[in-house]
């Protein structure tokens, strides 16, 4: 029998390769005959998938947003340029960014708690996952408004 150069090829495992029953055992070029997982586009987007992506996106957004927080702290500590950033954060645009950051944070927080519940082996069924997704959406928006109302109450 001639040598097969690609030992990993599915041709060496005919049972794994039902689509190509006639594949010769003598192939020398690596054509992709291994079973591949389907491309991302063939999946119908589900709510839980969107939530998974949102958790990663909000995590990354929060990561970048720490720059703003540190800039504010440093300006407060050195009093240089404090009025600039403070005035910016206190403007409508600054509030918009802070509001968005609060929402991203709460979305990530609730999604994170969902991960922690999953880690205990609970809540992995289809109805529970869907339920968590809705809790994350409704909860993050509601809590964002509640926290901002609390903030403005303390602000006086």
């Amino acid at each position, binding site marked *: 029998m001639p040598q097969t150069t690609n030992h990993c090829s599915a041709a060496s495992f005919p049972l794994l390769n039902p689509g190509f029953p006639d594949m010769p055992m003598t192939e020398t070029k690596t054509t992709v005959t291994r079973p591949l997982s389907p491309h991302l586009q063939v999946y119908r987007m589900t709510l839980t998938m969107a939530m998974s992506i949102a958790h*990663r996106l909000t*995590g*990354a957004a*929060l*990561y970048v947003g*720490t*720059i703003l*927080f*540190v800039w*504010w*702290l*440093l300006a*407060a*500590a*050195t*009093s240089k340029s*404090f*009025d600039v950033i*403070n*005035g910016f*954060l*206190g403007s409508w645009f*600054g*509030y918009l960014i*802070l509001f968005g950051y*609060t929402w991203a*944070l709460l979305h990530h*927080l609730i999604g*994170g*708690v969902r*991960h*922690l519940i999953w*880690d205990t082996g609970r809540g992995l069924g289809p109805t529970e996952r869907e339920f968590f997704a809705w809790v994350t959406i409704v909860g993050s928006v509601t809590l964002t408004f509640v*926290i*901002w109302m*609390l*903030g*403005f109450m*303390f*602000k006086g």
Partner: protein
Amino acid sequence: MRTPLGRVRGLGSARSGTEHFWVQRLTAIANVPLVLALVILVIVLAGRSHASVIATLSQPAIGILLLAAVISVIVHMRIGMQVIIEDYVQGEGMKVTLLMANTLFSCAVGLVATFAILRICFGS
């Protein structure tokens, strides 16, 4: 003489075992109260005068809260970003570069924040 386990230790794609997973969960739990308090604090203080911001932030309880939040969040976000990089970046060179940049960025943010908090609390 090396045992089979000794030979494979540190050879996984992450060069470590479950420690990152574990620390990510620990900091996630710590983040919940710390970060909620932080957000309310920032909303309350945004737009206030410098003297008033300093007067609030320099209280011992608030200084400790800030330090705890910074440590927990920085450790958490560094591991989180490392996972993202390891998931999407294929080339070894690019991956190592980005992993280093991630660690350096996280350390820089953490150090500057810590410096600022200490300076606010202990004055100068």
